Structure formats: structure tokens, C-alpha cells
């Protein structure tokens, strides 16, 4: 390395220094410490003791109790019901939170991917006014989710919320007609956020509403990136609009579908604000997500060692799901 190269290297380090120091102090070190904490019983007030895999065993482990199983069987439970007594999770709340988070993710993916693609497809035209529509669909993405959750909290309100009021006036109108036919439609009063059957789906709808615009913009960029000559050639060959959609558009944007799938999944696995603001994880833990559970354990009960292990489980999940999606994608994503 000559003097000039050395000088350049030093300059390079200097330019990177502010960034790199921050990266080291506020990312790399906490990351290592977090990993260490996850193997300790740290609780903020006492120094951490190393306890090996105990936190992970508590979160992920099960205990077997054959006696309980036999007892349940002798009390007339079916084998299937008795299994719940045989295999008991050490931390049932963790599994509830994990199950909720998965349902949440599946719900959001179902409500977001297809509709946002269709929206992008509809918006991808030369007609005037498209930027206005695009802007309208994107506003929920830029709005603070805490603010949006509070607004939706009143839209979902059981007794005086917009949805239930609108639903019942619709039903009243319909009943005016159907009463001549001899039946009435019962007034639907759904406790969107207070009924454990509906609470999670209510949050899924909110999150999807706040995500669709984002997915739509990514799809739109992908659609606009498809070379026009492909469509022109297809039209010359007599392809119809729907044939072009299925044979050209969709194969060309499979990498984008994949990207949206991965980013949405990663985002939903970290959901916190929606349940915190709207339901506090209730009713009956039906909207407790894994990050909310982490917050409760780490910052409300100060079980920070256990909280750290939950954080690493979240990361592990994200890692596994992303890798899995990449593996599967190799089979169906079209690459040029």
C-alpha cells in the first residue's frame, strides 16, 4: 500500500466513522448484550445470572403429566380432549401470543396482497387523475398508526361506532322491505373490539387498511417496469386483455409478489401499537401479539432476560419464515 492509498484508506475510515461508531455502540453491542441477556435471569434490579437455556425452555417447552391425562380419561374425556392435559405448555400465554401473531399475519397477507395488486392494476393507466387516487390510497400508510388506531377505535365502538350504526340503519331499511315478505333481519350488534371472536379480525382490518397503499405502490412500480413491447407483441398475436394479465403481467411481477410477501410478514410479526391502543391485548388475550407480550414481560414485569429470549424467538421466526419463503420462491418466482 503506497502513501496515496494509505491516505485514501484513512479518509475512507474517517468518512465512515460517525456512521460506524453509531452502528457499533447502538447496534452491534446491544445485539450481543441482548443475546447474552436471553441466557440470564436479568430483571433490571439485580445483576444477571447465567441460567443457560432456561428462558427458551420456559417459552418453548412443554411438560408431560401422564397422571393428569389418566385422570381426564377416567373422568370421561375423549383421548383428544385428554391430550390437552398430557402436554401442557410451560408458558401458555406465549403460545397464545404466537398463535395470535400467526393468525394476524395470515389475515393481513390475505387482505393485502391480492387487493393491493388489483388496485395497482386498476391504477396503472394513462387516464388523468391517477395520482389523486394513488395519493388517497397511500394516506393511511403515512398516518401515525397510533392516531389511526384511535380513530378506528371509535369506528369500531359497539354502541355508537360508525360501522354498527351504519349496519343497523342498513338493516332497518332492508327490514322495511322484508317485513312485507313476512320476516325481519335481526339487528347485528357486533362487539368488534370487545368480543374475543371479533377483536383480532378487527385489528387485522385496521393493519391491512394501513398497509394496502404501501403494497400497491410497490406493485405499481413493478407494473410500470414491465417492458411495453411484450404487451405490444402479445396484442399483435391476438392476445386478449386477460390473457396478457395471466401470461405476461403476473409472471413478470412474481419477484415483487415475493418481496411484498416477505416485507409484510416481517412487519406483521412485530405488531405492537394496534393491540396496545385498541384492546390492550384483550379480551381474554385474544389480541395479545408476541411483541406486545415481550413488552409486558420486559417493561411491565421487568423480566428482561425472558423478554430478550422472546425477542430472539421473534427474530428466529422472521429468519425462518424469510428463508422458507426464499426457498419456495425459487420454484415459482420468475427471473429474467
Amino acid at each position, binding site marked *: 500500500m503506497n502513501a496515496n492509498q494509505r491516505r485514501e484508506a484513512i479518509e475512507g475510515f474517517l*468518512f465512515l466513522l460517525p456512521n460506524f461508531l453509531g452502528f457499533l455502540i447502538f447496534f452491534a453491542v446491544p445485539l450481543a448484550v441482548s443475546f447474552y441477556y436471553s441466557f440470564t435471569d436479568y430483571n433490571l434490579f439485580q445483576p444477571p445470572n447465567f441460567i443457560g437455556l432456561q428462558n427458551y425452555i420456559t417459552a418453548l417447552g412443554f411438560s408431560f403429566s401422564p397422571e393428569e391425562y389418566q385422570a381426564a380419561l377416567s373422568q370421561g374425556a375423549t383421548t383428544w380432549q385428554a391430550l390437552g392435559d398430557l402436554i401442557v405448555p410451560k408458558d401458555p400465554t406465549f403460545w397464545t401470543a404466537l398463535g395470535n401473531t400467526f393468525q394476524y399475519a395470515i389475515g393481513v397477507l390475505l387482505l393485502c396482497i391480492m387487493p393491493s395488486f388489483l388496485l395497482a392494476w386498476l391504477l396503472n393507466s*394513462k*387516464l388523468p387523475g391517477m395520482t389523486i387516487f394513488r395519493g388517497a*390510497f397511500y394516506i393511511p400508510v403515512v398516518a401515525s398508526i397510533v392516531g389511526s388506531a384511535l*380513530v378506528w377505535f371509535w369506528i369500531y365502538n359497539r354502541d355508537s361506532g360508525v360501522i354498527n350504526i351504519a349496519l343497523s340503519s342498513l338493516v332497518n331499511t332492508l327490514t322495511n322491505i322484508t317485513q312485507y315478505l313476512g320476516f325481519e333481519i335481526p339487528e347485528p350488534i357486533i362487539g368488534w373490539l370487545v368480543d374475543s371472536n371479533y377483536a383480532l379480525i378487527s385489528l387485522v382490518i385496521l393493519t391491512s387498511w394501513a398497509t394496502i397503499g404501501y403494497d400497491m*405502490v410497490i406493485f405499481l*412500480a413493478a407494473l410500470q417496469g414491465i417492458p411495453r413491447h411484450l404487451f405490444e407483441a402479445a396484442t399483435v398475436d391476438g392476445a386478449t386483455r386477460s390473457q396478457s394479465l395471466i401470461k405476461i403481467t403476473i409472471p413478470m411481477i412474481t419477484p415483487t409478489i415475493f418481496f411484498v410477501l416477505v416485507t409484510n410478514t416481517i412487519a406483521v410479526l412485530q405488531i405492537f401499537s394496534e393491540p396496545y391502543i385498541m384492546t390492550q391485548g384483550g379480551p381474554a388475550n385474544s389480541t395479545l401479539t408476541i*411483541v406486545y407480550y415481550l413488552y409486558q414481560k420486559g417493561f411491565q414485569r421487568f423480566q428482561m432476560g425472558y423478554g430478550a429470549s422472546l425477542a430472539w424467538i421473534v427474530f428466529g421466526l422472521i429468519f425462518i419464515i424469510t428463508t422458507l419463503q426464499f426457498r419456495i420462491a425459487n420454484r415459482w418466482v420468475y427471473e429474467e
Partner: protein
Amino acid sequence: MLGQVERITVWQKLAYYVFMSILGFLVIYPFLFMLYTSFKDSPEVFANILRPFGERLRFENYFIVLGTVNMGRYMLNTAFVTISVVIGQIITSMMGGYAFARINFPGRDQLFRIYLGTIMIPFVVIMIPIYKQMQLFGWLDKFQSLIIPWVFTAAGTFLFRQFFKSIPKDLEEAAIIDGASRWTILWRIFAPLSVPAIATQFTISFLYAWNSFIWPLVAIQSKDNYVVTQGLADIQGGYHASPPIIMAGATLVILPTVLIFLMAQRYFIEGVATTGMKN
């Protein structure tokens, strides 16, 4: 739709606009609801929640939120934190991006790959140690904890590296011959050319900082240092029987980002599209 606009009849066009308008209305309805409710009083809300206007526009709701509820203070706090984070992120990302794009030093590409790899690690993984760290530094419950750990961004560094790589080399070569330092080149030649990248990073950083919630929630305890999202969560507890107050608060939190979005829509969309495509 692509390339086939010419063949659409007037009726199809009309149907299309009607359909999109209904959809657009439904999507922004929650914000309309928020706005009109913020100008009513509670009896008017409960009398008819769907009716856009009460007897008159009650601006006093906003005075209550800004004054009594102290939202004015929270907005100033958040503005200070947000501006600091945005400026900090842009400066460190530009310097880092420049080093990664244009300067040769040993280990550069390996280091860059590590940077990229960290983008997928979620914040919650480091939340507990960062909390402890802030306690050790004495920054807990202070603005430092909301600003200093957040002015370094791997994603922003990546964005500027990509942008700088697309700038032709001969532009800076002339400056180097004239004896300009790299520092001068970055701020005098690259920075003026980077307005689109800076605007894009601005939108990303601004949204991130203004809307952040879980970290301020754990880091800030004193009400005097609350940020807007915390203040808003607090209103919900105190004014749960008074939707207009809550909606006025929500409007104050949501409006700044929406206004900036409406003014700079292009850069928001570009930010999403570029970070989306190039990863």
C-alpha cells in the same frame, strides 16, 4: 389496463371513475370522520355519529388539546426530536454512503455486506439492552435517548451509496485535479446533485421519527418529555368519553405527515419503490 386506454369507451371510463371514487372515499373515510368529529361536541357525536357537522365548528376542542392536554408541548418535543433525527440520519448516511461508494479502503465491501445484513434485524431484538444502555448513559427519560441512537441508519447509508454510484466519475475528477478535498467534493458536488435522494431519505426518516411509538413509550416517563404518539395514547385514557377531544388530538398527530406527503408525494412513492425494488 396497460396500453389499452384508447379502446375504453366513455361508459367504461365513467364506471371506472365512479368505482375508484367510491373505493377512495371508503379508504379515506376514517380521516374524514376524524376531522368532522374533532369539530363537534360530545352530545352532537352521540346524537348522530354519521352526521358531518354539528351546530357550528367547535375550534375550542383544539385549544383544549393543545393547552389543557398539553399536546402543544408534545408536538414541539416531537418536532425537535424528528428534525434532529432527520438531519442526523441524512448527514451520517451521506458520509457513509460516500465512503462505501467512492473511497477504497480495506474491508469496505465486507463491511457493507454486514451493514446490509443488519437491515432485517428487528428493533425489538435490541430494545432491552438499549434501554439498559440509556440508563447507564443517564439518557433515559431525556431527548438524547430518542435522538442519538437513531441518527445512524444502515438503510439510509445503502440508499446514498446506490445514488452516489450512479453519479458519473468525471464530475469529481475535474475537482480532484483542481485540488479539492473529498470533504469539499461530497458537500459541494455530490450534495447538490443528490436532492432527490435527500428528499427521499427525508420522507423515510421523517415518517419513522414522527410516528415512532414503542421506543418513546419505554424510554420516556416524564410527561414533560412525551412525544405526540405517547400524548395521544394518554388522551385516550383521560378523555375516553369525549371523542371530539381524542379526534382533535389524532388530527394534530396525523396532519403533519399527511401534509408533507401531499406536498412531496413523488419522493414518498420513489422511496418505497426504490427500497422495494433494489433489495
